[in-house]
């Protein structure tokens, strides 16, 4: 710590240059945090997917419906513990910008298969007793200031191009911070009854979620399900829930690759910018480094001072960038519902902190070695 003042003073001697470099590092880490949050929003569900859950969809596409009658046949397949279904409702609340998912489900089965969605017992009871009842995740309830007892009108352009009204009977929380608490779920029996008047979709559902008895045998069960419906008008594709979520995200592209490529480009640029700043700083003070050596600083100590200066610069920039980004990301999804799981994972925060230190070492090591190798007598002549 006794060298801190010396290191800090060196860093502050060219305030404009240091500030600009700091700013560029800060921006890089803000970008890092936001890209991490976007990646988490798009593919983070893969990690949260239940290990014991399979998703069965139409073999052609997720938008093709499956017969409701498949449920009973699936439940007869060995290894299947429970089968339930959801259907894409695609409704609009007041304005198309207010996006959030709403799906009709069978309440008991849905809650049994998704224990990560935590609902108070009295709210669950109310849902089972109210045909038009719906439950919504905490973040959407907060977003629209909904409370239990509210009547929520949702217009569905898919299902009858009409406004459906739901009685809000429950607000669920996520078991973990990363659990998606934006969707609204309502009762399938209500949905099925109302849609009977439509010319299409009757007796059909979007996709099935299967709970398997033994997660280790998931692949085997998935194969059996697809075999069961092979050569039928609605062939299925069964995959682990994680792969299903990944497939959804892959419609945009390989998110991890895109994010990774952008970050590599950004940090490579920062490496050059900061490296140049440090190299210039050391070149400018060759004589002063010579003085330090003359008064007794060892080569190792001089190298350490330069390296510490580079690390201080990048760690400071990284901490500011990560701190600012964390603050804004914690305020929630900036898209108004398109990215419900918009959060900066703790793991990525730690990675960012480590990256800032690594950046300091990478940018400081060359000038630090130059400083270390400096011959005292030669350096003093350059004062």
């Amino acid at each position, binding site marked *: 710590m006794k060298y801190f003042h*010396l290191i800090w003073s060196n860093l502050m*001697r060219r305030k404009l240059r240091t500030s600009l470099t700091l700013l560029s590092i800060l921006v890089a880490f803000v970008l890092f945090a936001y890209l991490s949050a976007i990646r988490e929003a798009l593919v983070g569900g893969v990690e949260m997917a239940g290990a014991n859950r399979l998703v069965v969809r139409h073999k052609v596409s997720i938008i093709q419906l499956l017969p409701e009658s498949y449920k009973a046949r699936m439940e007869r397949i060995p290894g299947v513990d429970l089968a339930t279904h959801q259907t894409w409702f695609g409704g609009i609340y007041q304005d198309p910008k207010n996006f959030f998912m709403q799906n009709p489900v069978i309440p008991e089965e849905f809650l049994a298969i998704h224990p990560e969605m935590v609902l108070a017992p009295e709210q669950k009871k109310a849902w089972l007793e109210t045909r038009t009842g719906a439950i919504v995740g905490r973040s959407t309830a907060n977003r629209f200031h909904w409370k239990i007892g509210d009547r929520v009108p949702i217009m569905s352009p898919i299902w009858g191009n009409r406004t459906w009204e739901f009685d809000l009977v429950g607000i669920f929380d996520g078991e973990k911070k990363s659990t998606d608490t934006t969707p609204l779920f309502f009762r399938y029996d209500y949905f099925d009854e109302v849609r009977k008047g439509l010319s299409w979709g009757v007796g059909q559902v979007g996709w099935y979620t299967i709970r398997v008895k033994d997660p280790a045998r998931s692949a085997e069960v998935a194969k059996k399900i697809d075999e069961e419906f092979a050569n039928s008008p609605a062939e299925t594709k069964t995959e682990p829930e994680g792969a299903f979520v990944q497939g959804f995200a892959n419609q945009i592209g390989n998110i991890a690759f895109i994010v990774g490529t952008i970050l590599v480009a950004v940090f490579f640029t920062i490496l050059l910018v900061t490296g140049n700043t440090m190299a210039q700083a050391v070149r400018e003070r060759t004589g002063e480094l010579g003085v330090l050596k003359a008064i*007794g600083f*060892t080569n190792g100590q001089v190298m350490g001072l330069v390296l510490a200066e580079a690390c201080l610069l990048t760690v400071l920039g990284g901490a500011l960038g990560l701190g600012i980004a964390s603050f804004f990301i914690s305020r929630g999804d900036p898209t108004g519902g398109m990215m419900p799981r918009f959060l900066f994972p703790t793991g990525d925060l730690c990675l960012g902190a480590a990256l800032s230190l690594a950046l300091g070492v990478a940018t400081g090591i060359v000038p630090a070695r130059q400083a270390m190798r400096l011959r005292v007598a030669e350096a003093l002549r350059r*004062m």
Partner: protein
Amino acid sequence: MSDNKANNGPLVRVDDVEKVFRRGSEDIHVLRGLNLQVAPGEFLALMGPSGSGKSTLLNLIGGLDHPTRGSVSIAGERVDQLSDREQAAWRARHIGFVFQLYNLMPMLTAERNVELPLLLTHLSRAERAKHVATALAAVGLEHRASHFPRTLSGGEQQRVGIARGIVTDPTLLLCDEPTGDLDRKSGDEILTLLQALNREQGKTIIMVTHDPHASARASRTVYLDKGQLSTEPVK
């Protein structure tokens, strides 16, 4: 100061030293079989024309460089046989440097500049502050402790440089043209200060200078020319 006082022999002993620099394919003999002895408490002026090897000799005595041949002993210790790392530690304990261009860190205040050599010791912050205050008082600059070099005159900056050189109470103070960048009045003040350090505190000083006026303040003057020493001025 304890080392040189305890030793009855010379504090500085340079024996048959040769220094050769290589420039391209050419060998440049800067020092040729040079011998020098400096007694404890002596104030030696080292004069000679530019390129005569004065600074090279000072660097060898100060453990900043190694001789090509010969030996350099300070207070009985063979400095030329130390590794770079050992030399650095030895310099921190035994040598105080005063440079022509003061060589202060521009971003540090006077007291922080003086404190620099003490960072290499195990002294506490309070103890370091005490030593710094003593050194600044010794050069008459205690009232300028919190000033940055750019706000000090050349003479004041050099006095800060001297305070930095003596703050660890070194065995030997090496001054490389300490008045070379100062006007006559400021130069005189610096020489008076060095003389006082030598006479009142018993500091052994070796001072490189071009200026006969400066060398007159020393207790002995030697002349260096073509890599060899003499007691007579170079013609």
